[in-house]
């Protein structure tokens, strides 16, 4: 960090060059609690200024990973770097990182102003400067004028904003958010998601956000790491992770998926060809690593399926299979259909409610069709395989 005066211009250039560099680097980090592996040999780069999410079910290691970045848990193995510096053994209070806790952790004996000023005062920032920055932070979270209130006098949403202001006021390198919206009701939650996104854009601080809500992660993130059993299953932009899930876990955790067993039969007209378990042959985007005869699973998102009543042909450039409608559920914006596609295979589809009622009645035959490019492929064993959007280490390939 020490830079001589004469070297300042070079350092400045270096800084601007590193604007897209990783601000947090986890290098083969593991964390064990007793015999339980919470985080398993995880490597990860978080880029400066991005809104990064760790998404997974409870117990997947996302919060433990966050706590190791914050300095609350020490890794059993591996190195944590912050802004290029090894901080693995640095206690939380000496890291240039702040956390918005799930429980907010507001100090009940201090008013809002003193809560927000807490970090600045620990760093011996002058009184006038503290005043200015606290007011600024409270304005940023739309709580100007609430300085004299006690945390106990605020609503959950307001407490959440105070917690956010209390962290942001310190201008940390990285802001960690541990399911900060978990305690809010759905409407407030949606509102705060957009608010968080706006604030992150305004302050330009790197956000690392932990959540188990896939919709929330996709709404606010630049990139998402989907975690399971202490590992990153897939890392990428929300669109990539959703449209091309690399593993069965990702496919099923991020929204609903229709997964069908099949065998790879080679390429045809630039498409990969797959023979489904029921005998139908479908086209898929040519998988980069599959060999002829490999077993695999193909997946289609329910909203990508089109339905044709019996007797009407699906477009020839679509994949299609025959199915029997079991149930049509009215969801409001759409109908959700459940089909029996033979051989015990269950499919579901969303169809926009554009008027006209359901496409068929229960027990009727239909054709279920989709575009080949909307098919994604998962190796049959369900394990992740390196693809352009997924790398086992989780590092971003650009």
């Amino acid at each position, binding site marked *: 960090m020490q830079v001589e005066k004469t070297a300042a211009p070079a350092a400045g250039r270096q800084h601007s060059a590193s604007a897209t560099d990783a601000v947090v680097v986890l290098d083969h980090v593991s964390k064990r609690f007793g015999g339980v592996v919470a985080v398993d040999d995880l490597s990860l780069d978080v880029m400066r200024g991005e809104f990064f999410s760790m998404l997974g079910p409870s117990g997947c290691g996302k919060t433990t990973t966050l706590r190791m970045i914050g300095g609350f848990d020490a890794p059993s193995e591996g190195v944590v770097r912050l802004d290029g510096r090894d901080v693995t053994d640095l*206690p939380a209070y000496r890291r240039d*990182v702040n956390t918005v806790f799930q429980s907010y*952790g507001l*100090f009940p*004996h201090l008013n809002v102003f003193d809560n927000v000023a807490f970090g600045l005062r620990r760093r011996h920032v002058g009184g006038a400067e503290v005043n200015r920055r606290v007011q600024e932070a409270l304005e940023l979270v739309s709580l100007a004028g609430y300085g004299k209130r006690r945390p106990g006098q605020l609503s959950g949403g307001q407490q959440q904003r105070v917690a956010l202001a209390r*962290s942001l006021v*310190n201008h940390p390198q990285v802001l960690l958010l541990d399911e900060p919206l978990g305690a809010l009701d759905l409407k407030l939650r949606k509102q705060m998601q957009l608010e968080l996104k706006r604030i992150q854009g305004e302050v330009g601080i790197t956000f690392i956000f932990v959540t188990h809500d896939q919709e929330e992660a996709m709404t606010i993130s630049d990139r998402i790491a989907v975690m399971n059993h202490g590992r990153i299953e897939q890392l990428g932009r929300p669109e990539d992770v959703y449209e091309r899930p690399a593993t069965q876990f990702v496919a099923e955790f991020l929204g609903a998926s229709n997964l069908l067993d099949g065998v790879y039969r080679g390429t045809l007209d630039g498409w990969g060809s797959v023979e489904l378990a029921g005998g139908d042959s479908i086209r898929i985007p040519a998988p980069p690593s599959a060999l002829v005869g490999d077993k695999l699973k193909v997946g289609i998102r329910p909203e990508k399926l089109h339905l044709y009543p019996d007797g009407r042909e699906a477009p020839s450039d679509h994949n299609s299979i025959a199915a029997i409608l079991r149930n049509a559920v009215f969801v409001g914006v759409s109908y959700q259909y459940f089909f029996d596609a033979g051989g015990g295979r269950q499919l579901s589809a969303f169809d926009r409610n554009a008027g006209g009622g359901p496409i068929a009645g229960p027990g009727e035959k239909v054709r279920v069709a989709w575009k080949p490019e909307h098919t994604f492929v998962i190796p049959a064993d369900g394990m992740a395989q390196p693809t352009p959007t997924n790398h086992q280490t989780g590092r971003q390939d650009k």
Partner: protein
Amino acid sequence: MAVGTATVRRPALTTRWGRALAPYLLIFPGVAWLLIFFLFPLLTLAVTSLMSGDFVAGFQFTWNFNNYTYGLGLYATQYSHSLEYGASATLIAFLLAYPAAYWIAFHAGPRKSAYLLIILLPFFVSFVLRTLSWETLMGDDGPILGPLKSAHLIPSDFRVLATPIAVTFGLAYTFFPYMLLPIYASLEKIDRRLIEAAEDLFANRVEVFRRVIFPLSIPGVFAGVLLTGIPATADFVNQTLLGGAGTTMIGRVIEQQFEVSANYPLASALAFVFMLGLLAMLLLYQRLFGTDELVRAR
């Protein structure tokens, strides 16, 4: 017909009456207890303190305020001893109890209850017995001072008993659990996540304690100081067993005036002054450090 309606209405009536009466029925034993054993003796005390006469000839109510002026003038030293020893004992108990309570609350892990029990176990024994054992231990030729004197490490006329130090430490020991338990309870209650939040906001261990843990434990300290300070100031057993002629506290004087001299009016006046004095200090203390203020002001 009439019987029918009566049987139908009756349960509803009793329920309604029961509902209305329940709070009064619940509070009655407590109120009665206070009336009989607190308010009545207090009034008796006030009346007695204004009487004149003696035990043999009998006492008459004569608005004898002389008891107050006479008592205050005669026993000013003993009043100040009470304050002095009581306050010192409270301070000592606090200094000993806080670290112990802190350690048990934050670092004793799953054995918290065991440590609390170990600390409280001696207090299952009558405190007169415990104070007597202090007397034996601290005796001029007792097991501690005796060997030291034989070895000529301390002068042969050195003594602990009959000094203010013996009384003060005796009091601190006697009321130690009343200091420790409320402090422990308030420390135990502190949300551990607040400590992490403070660390996250750049507070080192000292600052975490100073800015978060101690402020949040103040209600416990407040209660502990009251529970220790009031009985320690009023105590006369410690002073009787561990103290000497030069360490007499007002509690001892009042006891002697009642039990030995049978000068009930004077004893009552002394007790009344003592009580009002404590009450005044209590109100001042509440104003200065009251938990209400802590939560609201600043």
